[in-house]
Protein backbone atom coordinates (compact mmCIF):
# COMPACT_ATOMS: atom_id res chain seq x y z
CA UNK A 1 0.00 0.00 0.00
CA UNK A 2 1.19 3.48 -0.79
CA UNK A 3 1.52 6.13 1.90
CA UNK A 4 -1.66 8.03 0.81
CA UNK A 5 -3.60 4.77 0.99
CA UNK A 6 -2.36 4.09 4.50
CA UNK A 7 -3.21 7.62 5.61
CA UNK A 8 -6.67 7.40 4.02
CA UNK A 9 -7.40 4.09 5.75
CA UNK A 10 -6.27 5.51 9.11
CA UNK A 11 -8.41 8.63 8.62
CA UNK A 12 -11.36 6.40 7.70
CA UNK A 13 -10.87 4.36 10.87
CA UNK A 14 -10.79 7.57 12.91
CA UNK A 15 -14.03 8.63 11.22
CA UNK A 16 -15.62 5.28 12.05
CA UNK A 17 -14.61 5.76 15.70
CA UNK A 18 -16.10 9.27 15.89
CA UNK A 19 -19.30 8.15 14.15
CA UNK A 20 -19.70 5.12 16.41
CA UNK A 21 -19.18 7.35 19.45
CA UNK A 22 -21.89 9.77 18.32
CA UNK A 23 -24.25 6.92 17.42
CA UNK A 24 -23.81 5.20 20.76
CA UNK A 25 -24.43 8.47 22.59
CA UNK A 26 -27.58 9.00 20.55
CA UNK A 27 -29.04 5.64 21.54
CA UNK A 28 -27.91 6.13 25.15
CA UNK A 29 -29.65 9.51 25.21
CA UNK A 30 -26.42 11.20 26.28
CA UNK A 31 -25.04 14.44 24.88
CA UNK A 32 -21.29 14.39 24.18
CA UNK A 33 -19.09 16.62 26.27
CA UNK A 34 -18.48 19.85 24.41
CA UNK A 35 -19.32 23.52 24.98
CA UNK A 36 -23.06 24.24 25.12
CA UNK A 37 -22.97 27.98 24.87
CA UNK A 38 -22.53 30.43 22.04
CA UNK A 39 -21.82 29.09 18.57
CA UNK A 40 -20.65 25.72 19.91
CA UNK A 41 -23.52 23.53 21.01
CA UNK A 42 -23.47 19.78 20.46
CA UNK A 43 -26.73 19.36 22.34
CA UNK A 44 -28.62 21.73 20.04
CA UNK A 45 -27.31 20.03 16.92
CA UNK A 46 -27.69 16.44 18.08
CA UNK A 47 -31.18 16.96 19.46
CA UNK A 48 -32.40 18.74 16.33
CA UNK A 49 -34.55 17.01 13.70
CA UNK A 50 -31.54 17.16 11.36
CA UNK A 51 -29.68 14.70 13.58
CA UNK A 52 -31.96 11.95 12.29
CA UNK A 53 -32.01 10.50 8.79
CA UNK A 54 -35.30 11.45 7.11
CA UNK A 55 -37.12 11.51 10.43
CA UNK A 56 -36.34 7.86 11.08
CA UNK A 57 -34.99 6.82 14.48
CA UNK A 58 -31.55 6.46 12.88
CA UNK A 59 -28.98 9.12 13.72
CA UNK A 60 -27.07 10.87 10.95
CA UNK A 61 -23.89 9.59 12.54
CA UNK A 62 -24.92 6.07 11.48
CA UNK A 63 -24.54 7.22 7.89
CA UNK A 64 -21.07 8.37 8.92
CA UNK A 65 -20.20 4.83 9.99
CA UNK A 66 -21.28 3.53 6.60
CA UNK A 67 -19.43 6.24 4.66
CA UNK A 68 -16.16 5.86 6.54
CA UNK A 69 -16.49 2.07 6.49
CA UNK A 70 -16.88 1.98 2.71
CA UNK A 71 -14.06 4.50 2.43
CA UNK A 72 -11.72 2.30 4.48
CA UNK A 73 -12.48 -0.69 2.24
CA UNK A 74 -12.08 1.37 -0.93
CA UNK A 75 -8.67 2.63 0.08
CA UNK A 76 -7.42 -0.92 0.47
CA UNK A 77 -7.83 -1.15 -3.32
CA UNK A 78 -6.08 0.74 -6.14
CA UNK A 79 -7.36 4.24 -6.86
CA UNK A 80 -10.27 4.34 -9.25
CA UNK A 81 -13.26 6.48 -10.21
CA UNK A 82 -15.16 4.95 -7.32
CA UNK A 83 -12.86 6.75 -4.90
CA UNK A 84 -13.58 10.05 -6.61
CA UNK A 85 -17.34 9.43 -6.69
CA UNK A 86 -17.40 8.34 -3.04
CA UNK A 87 -15.42 11.45 -2.07
CA UNK A 88 -17.92 13.61 -3.95
CA UNK A 89 -20.78 12.00 -2.03
CA UNK A 90 -19.00 12.66 1.26
CA UNK A 91 -18.14 16.24 0.35
CA UNK A 92 -21.70 17.02 -0.74
CA UNK A 93 -23.05 15.59 2.52
CA UNK A 94 -20.59 17.61 4.59
CA UNK A 95 -21.53 20.81 2.74
CA UNK A 96 -25.21 20.12 3.44
CA UNK A 97 -24.62 19.38 7.13
CA UNK A 98 -22.47 22.50 7.57
CA UNK A 99 -25.26 24.47 5.88
CA UNK A 100 -27.74 23.03 8.38
CA UNK A 101 -25.49 23.85 11.32
CA UNK A 102 -24.71 27.42 10.31
CA UNK A 103 -27.88 28.57 8.53
CA UNK A 104 -30.68 26.47 10.00
CA UNK A 105 -29.46 25.94 13.56
CA UNK A 106 -26.95 28.74 14.01
CA UNK A 107 -24.65 26.55 16.09
CA UNK A 108 -21.88 24.05 15.45
CA UNK A 109 -21.25 20.64 17.02
CA UNK A 110 -17.56 20.02 17.63
CA UNK A 111 -17.80 16.24 17.37
CA UNK A 112 -19.75 16.54 14.11
CA UNK A 113 -17.12 18.98 12.85
CA UNK A 114 -14.42 16.44 13.67
CA UNK A 115 -16.20 13.93 11.43
CA UNK A 116 -16.58 16.58 8.71
CA UNK A 117 -12.87 17.38 8.83
CA UNK A 118 -12.04 13.69 8.44
CA UNK A 119 -14.31 13.45 5.38
CA UNK A 120 -12.64 16.50 3.88
CA UNK A 121 -9.22 15.01 4.62
CA UNK A 122 -10.13 11.92 2.60
CA UNK A 123 -11.45 14.10 -0.21
CA UNK A 124 -8.18 16.01 -0.27
CA UNK A 125 -6.14 12.80 -0.29
CA UNK A 126 -8.21 11.57 -3.23
CA UNK A 127 -7.69 14.76 -5.16
CA UNK A 128 -3.99 14.87 -4.35
CA UNK A 129 -3.26 11.40 -5.68
CA UNK A 130 -5.78 11.55 -8.50
CA UNK A 131 -3.51 13.38 -11.04
CA UNK A 132 -0.85 10.68 -10.64
CA UNK A 133 -3.41 8.16 -11.87
CA UNK A 134 -3.89 10.10 -15.12
CA UNK A 135 -0.57 9.05 -16.58
CA UNK A 136 0.46 7.33 -19.78
CA UNK A 137 3.20 4.93 -20.58
CA UNK A 138 5.69 6.06 -23.21
Amino acid sequence: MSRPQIVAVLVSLAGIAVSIYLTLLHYAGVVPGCPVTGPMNCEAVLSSPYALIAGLPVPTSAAGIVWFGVSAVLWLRPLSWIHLAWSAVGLATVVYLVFVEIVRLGVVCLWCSAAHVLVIAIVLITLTVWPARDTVKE
Partner: protein
Amino acid sequence: MGARRPARRAPVRKPVAGTPPWVMPAAVVAGLALLIGAFLIIRWYTTPLPPTPPSKDSTAQIVSTITALPASEFDTVGQGTANNLVKPISGQALTGSTGKPEVFYYGAEFCPYCAAQRWPLIIALGRFGTFTGLQTTTSSSNDVYPNTVTFTFRNATYTSQYLDFRAVETTDRDQNPLQSPSPSEQQLVNSYDSGGTIPFIDVANRYAASGAMYTPDTIGGMSWLAVADSLKQPDSTQARAIIGSANLITAAVCKATGDKQAEVCSSAMIQGLEKNLK
Protein backbone atom coordinates in the same frame (compact mmCIF):
# COMPACT_ATOMS: atom_id res chain seq x y z
CA MET B 1 31.78 4.89 -36.79
CA GLY B 2 28.31 3.53 -37.11
CA ALA B 3 25.54 4.99 -35.00
CA ARG B 4 24.57 2.78 -32.13
CA ARG B 5 20.97 2.16 -31.59
CA PRO B 6 20.07 3.35 -28.12
CA ALA B 7 19.00 0.70 -25.67
CA ARG B 8 15.22 0.45 -25.21
CA ARG B 9 14.28 2.15 -21.98
CA ALA B 10 11.59 1.03 -19.67
CA PRO B 11 8.29 2.97 -20.04
CA VAL B 12 8.21 6.07 -17.91
CA ARG B 13 5.02 7.31 -16.26
CA LYS B 14 4.53 10.91 -17.07
CA PRO B 15 1.72 13.20 -16.14
CA VAL B 16 -0.60 13.98 -19.00
CA ALA B 17 -1.61 17.36 -17.71
CA GLY B 18 0.78 19.91 -16.33
CA THR B 19 -1.51 20.85 -13.45
CA PRO B 20 0.34 20.58 -10.14
CA PRO B 21 -1.23 18.01 -7.79
CA TRP B 22 -1.98 20.60 -5.10
CA VAL B 23 -4.27 22.69 -7.31
CA MET B 24 -7.41 20.59 -6.98
CA PRO B 25 -7.20 20.14 -3.18
CA ALA B 26 -6.47 23.85 -2.80
CA ALA B 27 -9.47 24.67 -4.99
CA VAL B 28 -11.71 22.47 -2.84
CA VAL B 29 -10.45 24.09 0.37
CA ALA B 30 -10.97 27.56 -1.11
CA GLY B 31 -14.44 26.58 -2.31
CA LEU B 32 -15.36 25.28 1.13
CA ALA B 33 -14.12 28.49 2.75
CA LEU B 34 -16.25 30.52 0.34
CA LEU B 35 -19.29 28.36 1.03
CA ILE B 36 -18.90 28.71 4.81
CA GLY B 37 -18.56 32.47 4.37
CA ALA B 38 -21.73 32.50 2.27
CA PHE B 39 -23.56 30.42 4.90
CA LEU B 40 -22.55 32.87 7.62
CA ILE B 41 -23.80 35.80 5.54
CA ILE B 42 -27.11 34.01 4.86
CA ARG B 43 -27.44 33.29 8.58
CA TRP B 44 -26.75 36.92 9.40
CA TYR B 45 -29.43 38.20 7.05
CA THR B 46 -32.06 35.60 7.87
CA THR B 47 -31.88 35.77 11.67
CA PRO B 48 -35.23 37.20 12.71
CA LEU B 49 -35.54 40.17 15.02
CA PRO B 50 -37.02 39.51 18.46
CA PRO B 51 -40.77 40.11 18.63
CA THR B 52 -42.09 43.25 20.28
CA PRO B 53 -42.73 42.49 23.96
CA PRO B 54 -46.30 42.87 25.18
CA SER B 55 -47.28 45.67 27.55
CA LYS B 56 -47.22 45.15 31.30
CA ASP B 57 -51.00 44.66 31.37
CA SER B 58 -50.87 42.21 28.50
CA THR B 59 -48.08 40.30 30.22
CA ALA B 60 -50.17 40.04 33.37
CA GLN B 61 -53.09 38.80 31.29
CA ILE B 62 -50.95 36.18 29.56
CA VAL B 63 -49.55 34.94 32.90
CA SER B 64 -53.07 34.84 34.28
CA THR B 65 -54.23 32.80 31.28
CA ILE B 66 -51.54 30.14 31.53
CA THR B 67 -51.73 29.80 35.31
CA ALA B 68 -55.51 29.47 35.37
CA LEU B 69 -56.04 26.74 32.79
CA PRO B 70 -58.90 24.43 33.78
CA ALA B 71 -58.12 21.07 35.37
CA SER B 72 -59.91 19.34 32.51
CA GLU B 73 -57.26 20.72 30.15
CA PHE B 74 -54.48 19.04 32.12
CA ASP B 75 -56.39 15.79 32.40
CA THR B 76 -57.11 15.72 28.68
CA VAL B 77 -53.50 16.24 27.66
CA GLY B 78 -51.81 13.92 30.17
CA GLN B 79 -48.16 13.54 29.25
CA GLY B 80 -48.95 14.63 25.70
CA THR B 81 -45.80 14.72 23.60
CA ALA B 82 -43.53 15.73 26.47
CA ASN B 83 -40.27 13.88 26.91
CA ASN B 84 -40.09 12.61 30.46
CA LEU B 85 -36.75 13.95 31.69
CA VAL B 86 -37.69 13.71 35.37
CA LYS B 87 -35.21 11.44 37.14
CA PRO B 88 -35.30 10.38 40.78
CA ILE B 89 -32.39 11.65 42.86
CA SER B 90 -31.45 11.10 46.46
CA GLY B 91 -29.98 13.61 48.82
CA GLN B 92 -30.78 15.66 51.85
CA ALA B 93 -34.28 17.07 51.47
CA LEU B 94 -34.13 20.48 49.82
CA THR B 95 -36.14 23.08 51.68
CA GLY B 96 -36.58 26.75 50.95
CA SER B 97 -36.49 29.95 52.96
CA THR B 98 -39.84 29.17 54.61
CA GLY B 99 -38.94 25.58 55.38
CA LYS B 100 -41.17 24.08 52.73
CA PRO B 101 -39.92 21.71 50.01
CA GLU B 102 -38.07 23.79 47.44
CA VAL B 103 -38.15 23.71 43.66
CA PHE B 104 -34.83 25.04 42.35
CA TYR B 105 -34.46 26.29 38.80
CA TYR B 106 -31.07 27.00 37.20
CA GLY B 107 -30.95 28.49 33.72
CA ALA B 108 -30.16 31.53 31.62
CA GLU B 109 -32.12 33.99 29.57
CA PHE B 110 -30.16 33.43 26.35
CA CYS B 111 -30.86 29.69 26.42
CA PRO B 112 -33.69 28.57 24.09
CA TYR B 113 -34.24 25.35 26.02
CA CYS B 114 -34.68 27.37 29.21
CA ALA B 115 -37.11 29.59 27.30
CA ALA B 116 -39.15 26.55 26.35
CA GLN B 117 -39.02 24.93 29.77
CA ARG B 118 -40.13 28.05 31.69
CA TRP B 119 -43.61 27.79 30.16
CA PRO B 120 -44.46 24.38 31.71
CA LEU B 121 -42.60 25.24 34.91
CA ILE B 122 -44.68 28.38 35.42
CA ILE B 123 -47.87 26.52 34.53
CA ALA B 124 -47.07 23.66 36.91
CA LEU B 125 -46.03 25.85 39.83
CA GLY B 126 -49.03 28.07 39.14
CA ARG B 127 -51.17 25.16 40.32
CA PHE B 128 -49.49 25.28 43.73
CA GLY B 129 -49.05 29.02 44.26
CA THR B 130 -48.79 32.45 42.68
CA PHE B 131 -46.10 34.17 40.65
CA THR B 132 -45.60 37.92 40.68
CA GLY B 133 -43.06 39.95 38.77
CA LEU B 134 -42.73 37.64 35.78
CA GLN B 135 -41.46 39.59 32.78
CA THR B 136 -41.46 38.59 29.14
CA THR B 137 -38.21 38.00 27.28
CA THR B 138 -36.85 35.95 24.41
CA SER B 139 -33.91 33.62 24.03
CA SER B 140 -30.81 34.83 22.20
CA SER B 141 -31.13 35.99 18.61
CA ASN B 142 -27.82 34.32 17.82
CA ASP B 143 -28.37 30.84 19.19
CA VAL B 144 -30.36 27.88 17.95
CA TYR B 145 -34.14 28.46 17.99
CA PRO B 146 -33.54 32.24 18.08
CA ASN B 147 -35.93 34.58 19.87
CA THR B 148 -38.01 31.88 21.53
CA VAL B 149 -40.65 33.75 23.52
CA THR B 150 -40.70 33.15 27.24
CA PHE B 151 -40.63 34.77 30.68
CA THR B 152 -37.72 35.44 32.98
CA PHE B 153 -37.51 34.62 36.67
CA ARG B 154 -34.93 37.34 37.34
CA ASN B 155 -37.33 39.62 39.25
CA ALA B 156 -40.11 37.13 39.91
CA THR B 157 -41.33 36.06 43.32
CA TYR B 158 -43.41 33.02 44.14
CA THR B 159 -45.63 32.32 47.10
CA SER B 160 -47.23 29.01 47.95
CA GLN B 161 -48.47 27.20 51.00
CA TYR B 162 -46.99 23.97 49.68
CA LEU B 163 -43.51 24.78 48.45
CA ASP B 164 -40.78 27.35 47.97
CA PHE B 165 -39.31 28.31 44.64
CA ARG B 166 -35.85 29.64 43.94
CA ALA B 167 -34.56 30.56 40.48
CA VAL B 168 -31.14 31.55 39.19
CA GLU B 169 -30.84 33.11 35.74
CA THR B 170 -27.08 33.12 35.20
CA THR B 171 -26.99 35.45 32.18
CA ASP B 172 -29.26 37.75 30.21
CA ARG B 173 -30.20 37.06 26.59
CA ASP B 174 -26.92 38.61 25.43
CA GLN B 175 -24.98 36.32 27.77
CA ASN B 176 -23.98 39.09 30.16
CA PRO B 177 -23.67 37.82 33.76
CA LEU B 178 -26.90 38.23 35.73
CA GLN B 179 -27.33 36.09 38.84
CA SER B 180 -25.09 33.63 40.67
CA PRO B 181 -26.10 30.52 42.57
CA SER B 182 -25.23 30.28 46.25
CA PRO B 183 -22.53 27.75 47.14
CA SER B 184 -25.15 25.23 48.21
CA GLU B 185 -27.09 25.76 44.97
CA GLN B 186 -23.91 25.35 42.96
CA GLN B 187 -23.38 22.11 44.82
CA LEU B 188 -26.81 20.92 43.69
CA VAL B 189 -25.93 21.70 40.08
CA ASN B 190 -22.57 19.95 40.40
CA SER B 191 -24.15 16.90 42.01
CA TYR B 192 -27.25 16.38 39.89
CA ASP B 193 -26.41 18.14 36.63
CA SER B 194 -22.84 17.06 36.07
CA GLY B 195 -23.21 17.48 32.33
CA GLY B 196 -23.88 21.18 32.84
CA THR B 197 -27.09 21.07 30.83
CA ILE B 198 -29.48 23.96 31.33
CA PRO B 199 -32.22 24.37 32.27
CA PHE B 200 -31.79 22.30 35.42
CA ILE B 201 -34.73 21.80 37.77
CA ASP B 202 -34.42 20.20 41.20
CA VAL B 203 -37.66 19.26 42.93
CA ALA B 204 -36.83 19.11 46.65
CA ASN B 205 -33.88 16.81 45.98
CA ARG B 206 -36.34 14.07 45.15
CA TYR B 207 -36.46 14.58 41.40
CA ALA B 208 -34.35 16.45 38.88
CA ALA B 209 -34.69 17.29 35.21
CA SER B 210 -32.01 18.63 32.89
CA GLY B 211 -32.96 20.12 29.55
CA ALA B 212 -36.27 20.96 27.93
CA MET B 213 -39.05 18.42 27.78
CA TYR B 214 -40.06 19.54 24.29
CA THR B 215 -38.24 21.17 21.41
CA PRO B 216 -38.30 25.00 21.42
CA ASP B 217 -39.25 24.80 17.77
CA THR B 218 -42.77 23.97 18.97
CA ILE B 219 -43.31 27.65 19.77
CA GLY B 220 -40.92 29.01 17.16
CA GLY B 221 -42.06 32.27 15.59
CA MET B 222 -45.06 32.58 17.92
CA SER B 223 -45.88 35.54 20.15
CA TRP B 224 -46.50 35.17 23.88
CA LEU B 225 -50.22 35.70 23.32
CA ALA B 226 -50.34 33.14 20.53
CA VAL B 227 -48.67 30.54 22.75
CA ALA B 228 -51.06 31.31 25.60
CA ASP B 229 -54.05 31.03 23.27
CA SER B 230 -52.79 27.73 21.82
CA LEU B 231 -52.69 26.27 25.33
CA LYS B 232 -56.45 26.65 25.58
CA GLN B 233 -56.78 24.00 22.87
CA PRO B 234 -55.78 20.63 24.38
CA ASP B 235 -55.23 19.10 20.96
CA SER B 236 -52.86 21.81 19.77
CA THR B 237 -49.22 20.91 19.22
CA GLN B 238 -48.19 23.48 21.79
CA ALA B 239 -50.63 22.25 24.46
CA ARG B 240 -49.60 18.63 24.00
CA ALA B 241 -45.96 19.60 24.49
CA ILE B 242 -46.18 22.35 27.11
CA ILE B 243 -49.06 21.07 29.23
CA GLY B 244 -47.70 17.55 28.94
CA SER B 245 -44.39 18.85 30.34
CA ALA B 246 -46.25 20.79 33.05
CA ASN B 247 -48.05 17.62 34.08
CA LEU B 248 -44.75 15.77 34.50
CA ILE B 249 -43.39 18.58 36.68
CA THR B 250 -46.66 18.67 38.60
CA ALA B 251 -46.45 14.94 39.27
CA ALA B 252 -42.90 15.35 40.61
CA VAL B 253 -43.97 18.24 42.85
CA CYS B 254 -47.00 16.31 44.08
CA LYS B 255 -44.88 13.33 44.98
CA ALA B 256 -42.20 15.47 46.64
CA THR B 257 -44.78 17.33 48.71
CA GLY B 258 -46.77 14.28 49.74
CA ASP B 259 -49.75 15.11 47.52
CA LYS B 260 -50.67 17.93 49.90
CA GLN B 261 -52.31 19.98 47.16
CA ALA B 262 -55.09 17.42 46.91
CA GLU B 263 -57.12 19.39 44.40
CA VAL B 264 -54.30 18.96 41.90
CA CYS B 265 -52.54 15.81 43.05
CA SER B 266 -55.62 13.61 43.44
CA SER B 267 -56.27 13.67 39.72
CA ALA B 268 -56.12 10.17 38.27
CA MET B 269 -53.91 11.50 35.50
CA ILE B 270 -51.37 12.97 37.95
CA GLN B 271 -51.48 9.82 40.06
CA GLY B 272 -50.74 7.80 36.94
CA LEU B 273 -47.75 9.99 36.10
CA GLU B 274 -46.51 9.75 39.69
CA LYS B 275 -46.38 5.98 39.38
CA ASN B 276 -44.11 6.37 36.34
CA LEU B 277 -41.72 8.60 38.28
CA LYS B 278 -40.60 5.69 40.50
